[in-house]
C-alpha cells in the first residue's frame, strides 16, 4: 500500500506527459506526405540571404505582392543575416534551411559537396529549359558531379564606372572606351585640379573585396576569358605573369600621384558604400567610381539617375570584358512548396515585378525578362549588357573571387589586396606570391 502511494506521483507525471503528447499529435492532424518523408508542407518557405536589410525588405514586398497573394498553401519569408556564411554552415548542419540565396557559386558547389543541398535534377527541374533561361555559362557555375544545384536569382554588372553626369558634361569630358582614353581622361581631370577616382575597400570582416573586382575587371580585359577561367581554376598560378600584368595596371591607377581621393593607403579605411559620396559634392570630390550596379542604393537619396550620375562600361584594354556577379538559389528541403516557390520566383512575372519595384536594384538573370521591366534607365542599360553577355559566349566572366576556394576568394585575395594598397606598388610580387601559397592543395 505504502509503495503504491510512493510511485503514484511518478506515474501521474508520466501520464500527464503522455496525455500532452497525444493531444498534440491528434490536434495537428496534418497529413504526412506519403511519397517523400521530408516533403511535408510546413506552410512557410524561408529564404535566407546575405543581402542588406533594405533589399531584404524589397524582396519581401515583392513576395507579398505576388507569390504570397497568388496561393495560400505557404508563405514566403525572406530573412537576411549579417553573418550569412556562419548561419548557413550552422543551419545546414542542423537541417533548418529551406532555400538560401548564395552570392558565391563556389559555395554552391561546396554545399553540394557537403551533401546538404538538393540537386535540381532530383527535384524534377528541366535543366535544358533552365539553360535557355539563364544561359549555359551561368547555370554551369552551380554544377557539381554532373548535377546542378543553383538557380540564378539575381545578377549584377560589375564592369561599371560611375560619373557625375551634369558636372562631367559641363567640364566637357568624354566617356572613355579604351584604357588609353581612360588614362588621358584622368590626366585631364588632374590638370583641371580635380581628383579622378573615389575608392573604398572597407567592408567589416570582408574588407578588400572591392579591390578584387578591380583586379578581375583588368584580368578579363587584358588576359581574356580563357586565361581568366584558368586563373580561377588554378590552372595558372596566382603569381602568373598575366596576373602580375593586371596587378601593375591596377597599381598604376591606385598609386598614380593624385589619382585616388585620400590616397591608396587609406582606401581600406573607407567604407565601400561611402566611397562614391564625394562624387556628389559640388564641385565633385572625385569624378570616377568603379562599382557594381547595386551601388546606386548607397547614392544620396536626391541624386537622380541620368542627371546627377550615369555610368559607362569599364573600358576595354586588350579586349572588352563583362564582369558580373550574381546570386543563386540553393534548396535544402525538397517539398512541394519549395519547388513551387522556385518556379514562381524565377518566372518572368515575378522577375519583371522585381524590376518595377521601387528601391530595388536587382537585375534578373532571366534573359527573357525585357529591359522594359526596369523603369530605372541605369538598370535597364545594365540589364541589356548582361542579357547579351549571358546569352552569348566569350564576353562574360563571373566574379573570380566568388569562384575561387573560400580560403583565397574570401580570404587571402581580399587580405592581399589590402596589403597591396597599404604597402605600395613594389609589394605586388610578394602579395601575389603569398596569395599563391595560400591556395589549398
Amino acid at each position, binding site marked *: 500500500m505504502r509503495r503504491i502511494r510512493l510511485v503514484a506521483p511518478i506515474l501521474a507525471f*508520466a501520464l500527464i506527459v503522455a496525455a500532452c503528447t497525444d493531444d498534440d499529435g491528434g490536434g495537428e492532424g496534418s497529413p504526412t506526405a506519403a511519397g517523400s518523408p521530408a516533403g511535408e508542407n510546413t506552410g512557410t518557405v524561408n529564404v535566407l540571404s546575405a543581402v542588406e536589410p533594405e533589399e531584404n525588405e524589397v524582396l519581401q514586398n515583392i513576395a507579398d505582392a505576388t507569390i504570397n497573394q497568388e496561393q495560400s498553401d505557404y508563405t514566403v519569408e525572406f530573412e537576411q543575416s549579417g553573418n550569412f556564411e556562419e548561419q548557413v554552415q550552422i543551419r545546414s548542419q542542423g537541417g533548418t534551411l529551406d532555400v538560401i540565396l548564395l552570392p558565391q557559386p563556389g559555395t554552391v558547389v561546396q554545399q553540394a*559537396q557537403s551533401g546538404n543541398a538538393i540537386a535540381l535534377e532530383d527535384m524534377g527541374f528541366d535543366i535544358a529549359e533552365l539553360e535557355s533561361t539563364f544561359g549555359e555559362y551561368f547555370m554551369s557555375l552551380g554544377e557539381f558531379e554532373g548535377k546542378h544545384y543553383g538557380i540564378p536569382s539575381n545578377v549584377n554588372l560589375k564592369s561599371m564606372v560611375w560619373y557625375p553626369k551634369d558636372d562631367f558634361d559641363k567640364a566637357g569630358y568624354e566617356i572613355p572606351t579604351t584604357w588609353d582614353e581612360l588614362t588621358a581622361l584622368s590626366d585631364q581631370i588632374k590638370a583641371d585640379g580635380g581628383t579622378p577616382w573615389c575608392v573604398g575597400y572597407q567592408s567589416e570582416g570582408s574588407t578588400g573585396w572591392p579591390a578584387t573586382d578591380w583586379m578581375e575587371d583588368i584580368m578579363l580585359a587584358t588576359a581574356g576569358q580563357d586565361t581568366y577561367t584558368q586563373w580561377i581554376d588554378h590552372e595558372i598560378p596566382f603569381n602568373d605573369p598575366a596576373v602580375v600584368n593586371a596587378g601593375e595596371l591596377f597599381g598604376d591607377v591606385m598609386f598614380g600621384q593624385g589619382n585616388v581621393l585620400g590616397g591608396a593607403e587609406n582606401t581600406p579605411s573607407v567604407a565601400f558604400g561611402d566611397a562614391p559620396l*564625394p562624387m556628389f559634392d559640388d564641385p565633385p570630390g572625385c569624378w570616377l567610381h568603379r562599382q557594381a550596379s547595386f551601388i546606386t542604393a548607397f547614392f544620396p537619396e536626391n541624386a537622380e539617375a541620368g542627371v546627377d550620375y550615369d555610368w559607362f562600361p569599364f573600358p576595354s584594354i586588350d579586349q572588352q570584358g563583362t564582369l558580373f556577379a550574381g546570386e543563386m538559389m540553393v534548396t535544402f528541403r525538397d517539398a512541394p512548396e519549395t519547388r513551387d516557390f522556385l518556379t514562381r520566383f524565377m518566372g518572368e512575372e515575378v522577375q519583371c515585378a522585381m524590376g518595377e519595384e521601387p528601391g530595388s536594384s536587382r537585375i534578373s538573370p532571366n534573359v527573357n525578362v525585357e529591359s522594359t521591366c526596369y523603369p530605372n534607365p541605369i538598370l535597364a542599360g545594365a540589364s541589356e549588357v548582361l542579357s547579351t553577355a549571358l546569352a552569348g559566349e566569350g564576353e562574360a566572366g563571373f566574379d573570380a573571387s566568388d569562384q575561387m576556394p573560400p580560403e583565397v576568394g574570401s580570404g587571402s585575395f581580399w587580405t592581399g589586396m589590402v596589403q597591396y594598397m597599404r604597402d605600395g606598388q613594389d609589394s605586388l610580387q610578394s602579395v601575389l606570391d603569398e596569395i599563391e601559397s595560400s591556395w*589549398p592543395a
Partner: protein
Amino acid sequence: MSSSATDPDAGLPAQTSKAGAALWLSVLRIAGALAIPVVAFFAMWATFDFLRSEDANRVIVVVVAVVVGVFGVFFLYWGMNKAVDLLPFRYREGVRPWIFVGPCLVILSVFLVYPVINTILISLKDAFGQEFVGLDNYRFVFSDDSMLRSIRNTLGWIVIVPLFATVIGLVYATLADKLRRGEAVAKSLIFLPLAISFVGASVTWKLIYSFRPAGFGSNIGLLNGVMQGLGQDPVAWIQLRPWNNLFLMVIMIWMQVGFAMVVLSAAIKSVPDEIVEAARIDGASEWQVFRRILIPSILPTIVVVVTYMVINAMKVFDIVFVFGNAEADETEVIAERMLRWFFISANQGRGAAIAVVLFVAIIPVMIWNIRRFREEESIR
C-alpha cells in the same frame, strides 16, 4: 564495494551472493544515473512539441514550461529518491548518491565529453571531415604566419587585459570604498559597460576610432576629433599596426574593469575593520595598509578575477571580428581564426585543430584555479 562496510548481513557463506550484490549494485547505480536524464529527455521532447505548436494559448504554454521545467525535474529527483527507499536496505546508500550525481555525469558526457572527443577526431581529418590527414592541421596551426600572429596576439590579450583591468578595478574599488558619499554612483558608472554586449561595445568604440581620409568629409571619431583639436592630422587607428591590437584590448579592459571593481570591492568590504584599524593604530601608512593588509587579505579574490579574465581574453572574438579584416590588420586572435577557418573557409579540420589548441591552452589555467581553490578550502 563500499557497500560491504555498511552491510551488516555480509558474511562468509554469502561469498557468491556478495559478488552478485556488487553486480546488482553497479547495475542499479547505472540505471539510477540514466533514469533521470532519459525520462527528462522524453518529457522535454513531448513538452517541446507542445510548446512549438503555434495555436496553443501562450499563457498555457508558459505554465506548462514552468511546471514541467521546475516541478518535473523536482518530482523526478524526489520520485527517484523514494524509489531508492524501496530497494533492499543494503543497496540503498550505495545507489542513492548516483541518483543525484548521475544525471549530471550523463549530461556532461553527452554535451561536453563527446563534443571534445569529436573535435579532436575532426582535427585529425581533412577540410570536409572525411579522411584522416594525421597531424597536418596542427602543423598548419604552428607554421602559418597568420596563425602564429594570432597566438602572439592572444598572448598579448591574456597578459595585458587582466593586468590592466584588475589593477584599475582594484585601485578604483579601494578609492571608492573611501568615499563618504556617492560610492554607489561612482561604482555604477564603471560597472555600466559590463551590461553592454561585446558587439555593442565594439560598435561604440568603432565610432571612437572612426577615421575618414581627406576628401571624405569631416572626421566624426572622438579620438580624431581630439587629434584635430590639437592640430594633428587624423590617424587611421585601426590600421596602425601593431598598436591597433592595444586599441582593441582597451575595449575589453573598459568592459571588464567594472567586473573586477565590483568583485574586489566586495572582498575589500569583507576585510575585518579590526585588522585595518589595528594596523593604523600601530602607525601604518595608508599605502602600507593597502600593500600589507588589504592585498594579502583579498588575494584569493584577485586570483579568481584574474583567472576569469584570462579565460575571457583567450576566448575573445567579437571585438576583433567587428573591427574588420583581422588578417590584413594583423589583429588575429585564436578564437577568431577558429571561426574564420571553420565557417568562412569551411575547413573543418583546421578549425577543429585551432579549437583543440585553444582548449588545451585553457586547461593549465583551470588546473591552477582549481588547485588554488582547494588550497583555500584546506586552510579553512
